[in-house]
């Protein structure tokens, strides 16, 4: 018994009828054929004859479908009524679904391509959404500003205690001015447990009031708790509360030990509060003694303020400028003419996000290009498929289906495809997000908030609809151009004439987009390569580092801390696993910078802003040896460079060149204040330049002082360095062990290899590069596949023509060359457009150049490499179809016609 139903279903083209009508017709026709077949058998016909008899009942299924559609059509193709929009839509969707099911390979390939594009875009958008688009987690965040001192050499400088007090007294446009510093690792002990290193921010008492943050538990700081004798309270973050206190609801009022001092936990902050940074676990009041402030020149505070209601940034900036002039007039020694002193306000959002915004937006743009290429690919797949459906569409047009109806039908199909791609894309994004987040640089704020939420889903939905329409319009356009009459007459499956043109345009567009992306990725790659070859000025290999922060309770005086670090250094020097060891106030590339105004004996500043203001570091003996920083002149610091001996300094080569030029700086003297009685410091050495801030930054002229002689209060928190003889990881452990040997209750923090620190300093660039390279690879792959598909289609379309020509004597080489030429002409057009696009983008997107290092945004070498690569891809994509063309058998090709 044959399955006549399957036969009917496979033969009868979709009729596009509503409801169960189509199924009814299939049923009826099935029964008819069954009956014919059974009757023939009963008459004594053979199986084969019976089948043939049944088959003869319907000689042309397409014609039958046309007849049925005509019979079923509303009488004389009445104009469509809007009231039927919904049922029609349902019908369109059902019809679309069936059409897609009938072409599983096409459907799968298209949906996957779209899933790639939509998935990548959704993932990237969810990052941008969380990091850039969501409002900062403070009340009325737009009124928050950072306030900086600004100097000729330092456009954004820290603030001193007296400045903070003065600003608070005088500014009427700022409703509240809060200050804070980040202290790095401190050891926290709870009731006899092991000490844990926590990250601490010290803040003014009004810090949370200015940010308008309400605690989840307990309270924040009370006014006056930043004054001497009242600072023994702390507020903790949700993370620490859960990690160390098991989310104990009775935590408020508990006493813990911070750096050996008892403090009382008075409150727990709400989840998501992460200011000044996500790393901070614990907030304590900064001692900001109103009556005995630190010197005006001691700039160490960061300041955040809230603009008063009804006031705006411009008014506030104007007022602070006036305040700056007043302060300068009142304190000429602190703000000498030529220091360029003023006060600058920057919106908090810009401070937090300004640096990463361009890179993220660029990546979002890049991923948008990938999505465009995916759309182009699916569009050209649909076009190629449309050729097989020309006749079906023509029948429906001939039967009065109406252009609009056909267009809607095709769009419904595209939207279905896009929806499948969109759903798969969102799932893919969900899977890709952890990978993107793992690659992300540590400084990226609000990373923990990145997730696929309602907003992201809505955007993904819009993207899906948009892509569906974008690639769906091509077949609609194609169908609108089709001449139904001609198609119906032609007996062939019905290729639509001229359809090659839009596909060629798609290949050109795809190639151009891929070119732009690949060029961008190439520029980042070249920048990164240049950064990696950038000489940091020291040798990071084999160096282990850790930060040790000594509690003021047990090391009240600078000398106590200095003695501890000197003992630690010697202990490490004696360690068999170590070749040399040192301590320093802050490591190069660690993100910490300090500067200090300087007076050079005999040097007359040449004008405003010329007062020497070098980078300033305190280091121990062995520092330059440990980091392999070359001593160019004079000597390194020695153990006897302590408080009992004359003060000495070492300067970097660029500092020597800047202020002494060709003269020998050895033996020359400097001091930190013009005031008489300030000690002169003698320069005893010149060392090589070191990248202090970032590999991509220029070197800063640097002044080094021996840590045993300094008086700037770095003493209690220093970084320890040890150069390992063999194993740097062993040295890391060695540092912790020796710290504990000297002081049992002392923990180390930020223990890491110097190499990792250097590598981490490039993490932002690496993140940008990796993502852009990934997107570019996707783009190139999609463009290659797209070119291949279109070329194969073109060759298929021309099979007959090629067959004729080969029959007339055209050689293989000739055919091969011709197809290759046709494909490469498209690629060349795309590349030319791509070059144009790249240059225009490079000129218009200034953000690009801020991401580059050592290459211009129109780097010809990168351009050449990218062109070659894409040409190679195009050759491969054209080669296979071209080869196929040469294998055309003239007789077969002609018979097909």
């Amino acid at each position, binding site marked *: 018994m044959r399955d006549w139903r399957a036969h009917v279903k496979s033969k009868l083209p979709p009729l596009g009828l509503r409801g169960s009508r189509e199924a009814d017709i299939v049923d009826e026709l099935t*029964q*008819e054929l069954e009956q014919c077949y059974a009757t023939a058998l009963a008459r004594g016909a053979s199986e084969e004859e019976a089948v043939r008899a049944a088959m003869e009942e319907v000689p042309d299924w397409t014609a039958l479908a046309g007849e049925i559609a005509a*019979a079923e059509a509303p009488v004389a193709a009445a104009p469509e009524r809007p009231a039927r929009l919904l049922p029609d839509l349902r019908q369109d969707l059902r019809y679309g679904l069936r059409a897609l099911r009938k072409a599983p390979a096409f459907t799968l390939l298209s949906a996957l391509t779209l899933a790639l594009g939509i998935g990548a875009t959704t993932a990237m958008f969810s990052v941008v959404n969380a990091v850039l688009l969501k409002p900062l987690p403070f009340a009325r965040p737009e009124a928050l500003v950072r306030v900086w001192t600004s100097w000729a050499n330092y456009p954004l400088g820290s603030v001193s205690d007296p400045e903070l007090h003065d600003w608070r007294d005088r500014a009427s446009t700022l409703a509240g001015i809060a200050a804070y510093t980040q202290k790095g690792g401190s050891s926290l002990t709870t009731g006899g447990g092991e000490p844990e290193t926590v990250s601490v921010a010290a803040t003014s008492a009004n810090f949370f009031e200015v940010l308008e943050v309400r605690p989840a538990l307990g309270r924040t700081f009370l006014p006056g708790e930043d004054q001497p004798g009242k600072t023994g309270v702390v507020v903790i973050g949700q993370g620490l509360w859960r990690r160390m206190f098991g989310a104990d609801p009775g935590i408020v009022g508990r006493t813990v030990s911070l750096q050996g001092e008892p403090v009382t936990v008075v409150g727990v902050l709400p989840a998501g509060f992460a200011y000044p940074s996500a790393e901070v676990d614990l907030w304590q009041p900064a001692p900001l003694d109103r009556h005995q402030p630190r010197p005006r020149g001691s700039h160490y505070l960061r300041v955040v303020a809230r603009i008063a209601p009804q006031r705006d940034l411009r008014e506030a900036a104007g007022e602070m400028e006036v305040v700056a002039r007043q302060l300068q007039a009142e304190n000429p020694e602190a703000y000498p003419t030529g220091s360029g002193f003023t006060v600058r306000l920057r919106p908090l959002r810009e401070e937090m996000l300004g640096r990463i915004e361009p890179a993220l937006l660029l990546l979002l743009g890049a991923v948008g290009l990938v999505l465009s290429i995916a759309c182009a690919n699916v569009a050209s797949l649909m076009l190629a498929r449309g050729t097989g459906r020309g006749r079906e569409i023509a029948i429906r047009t001939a039967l009065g289906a109406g252009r609009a109806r056909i267009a809607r039908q095709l769009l419904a199909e595209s939207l279905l495809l896009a929806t499948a791609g969109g759903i798969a894309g969102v799932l893919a994004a969900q899977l890709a997000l952890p990978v993107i987040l793992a690659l992300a640089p540590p400084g990226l704020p609000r990373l923990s908030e990145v997730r696929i939420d309602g907003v992201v889903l809505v955007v993904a939905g819009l993207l899906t609809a948009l892509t569906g329409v974008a690639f769906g319009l091509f077949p609609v356009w194609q169908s609108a151009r089709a001449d139904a009459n001609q198609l119906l007459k032609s007996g062939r499956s019905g290729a639509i004439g001229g359809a090659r043109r839009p596909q060629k345009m798609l290949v050109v567009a795809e190639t151009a987009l891929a070119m732009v992306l690949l060029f961008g990725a190439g520029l980042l790659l070249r920048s990164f390569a240049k950064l990696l070859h950038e000489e940091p000025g020291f040798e990071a290999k084999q160096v282990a580092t850790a930060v040790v922060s000594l509690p003021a309770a047990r090391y009240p005086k600078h000398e106590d801390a200095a003695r501890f670090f000197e003992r630690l250094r010697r202990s490490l020097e004696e360690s068999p696993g170590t070749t040399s060891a040192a301590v320093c106030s802050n490591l190069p590339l660690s993100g910490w910078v300090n500067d200090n105004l300087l007076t050079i004996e005999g040097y007359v500043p040449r004008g405003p802003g010329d007062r020497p203001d070098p980078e300033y570091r305190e280091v121990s003996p062995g520092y330059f040896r440990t980091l392999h920083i070359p001593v160019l002149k004079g000597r390194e610091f020695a153990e006897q460079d302590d408080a009992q001996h004359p003060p000495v300094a070492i300067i970097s080569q660029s500092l020597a060149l800047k202020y002494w030029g060709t003269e020998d700086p050895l033996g020359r003297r400097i001091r930190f204040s013009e005031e008489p009685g300030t000690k002169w410091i003698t320069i005893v050495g010149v060392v090589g330049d070191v990248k202090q801030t970032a590999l991509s930054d220029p070197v800063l002229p640097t002044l080094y002082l021996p840590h045993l002689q300094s008086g700037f209060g770095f003493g209690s928190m220093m970084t320890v360095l040890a150069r390992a003889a063999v194993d740097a990881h062993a040295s890391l452990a060695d540092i912790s062990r020796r710290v504990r040997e000297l002081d049992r209750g002392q923990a180390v923090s930020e223990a890491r290899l110097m190499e990792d620190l250097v590598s981490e300093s490039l993490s932002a660039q690496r993140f940008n590069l990796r993502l852009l390279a990934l997107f570019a690879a996707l783009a190139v792959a999609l463009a290659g596949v797209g070119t291949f598909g279109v070329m194969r289609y073109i060759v298929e379309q021309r099979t007959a023509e090629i067959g004729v020509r080969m029959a007339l004597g055209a050689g293989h080489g000739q055919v091969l060359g011709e197809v290759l030429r046709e494909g490469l002409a498209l690629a060349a057009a795309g590349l030319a457009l791509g070059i144009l696009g790249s240059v225009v983008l490079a000129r218009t997107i200034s953000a690009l150049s801020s991401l580059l290092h050592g290459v211009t945004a129109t780097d010809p070498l990168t351009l050449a490499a990218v062109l070659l690569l894409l040409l190679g891809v195009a050759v491969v994509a054209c080669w296979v179809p071209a080869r196929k063309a040469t294998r055309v058998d003239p007789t077969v090709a002609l018979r097909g016609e």
Partner: protein
Amino acid sequence: MVEAALDQQQLKKGSAELLILATLEDRPRHGYDIGRQIALRSKGTVRFHAASLYPLLYRLARKGWIHGRWLEKEGQRRRRYYRLTPAGQKALEAQRRSWQEFAAAIARVTQVRHA
């Protein structure tokens, strides 16, 4: 089977609706049965392929002259039976009348000629 001198196709086209309506006059029938009745009554002169019969049925149904309904008789599978509607009955009578007039006219013309 008689080899008609006239173009069978053209004749069939003009009379197909009438033929179908006529088979349904005495009782409802399913599609296969309609085709079989026409073949039987015409002694095989007129035969409809499924490919032409069904679109005709659907056209008649769309015009409201016949009405199709799925029926399940005991021991048989369900089939779609068509019956004449009142409008179909009127149409049948009208077509039959004009066909008879036409046939009579043809007969008169041809007889006169042969006379």
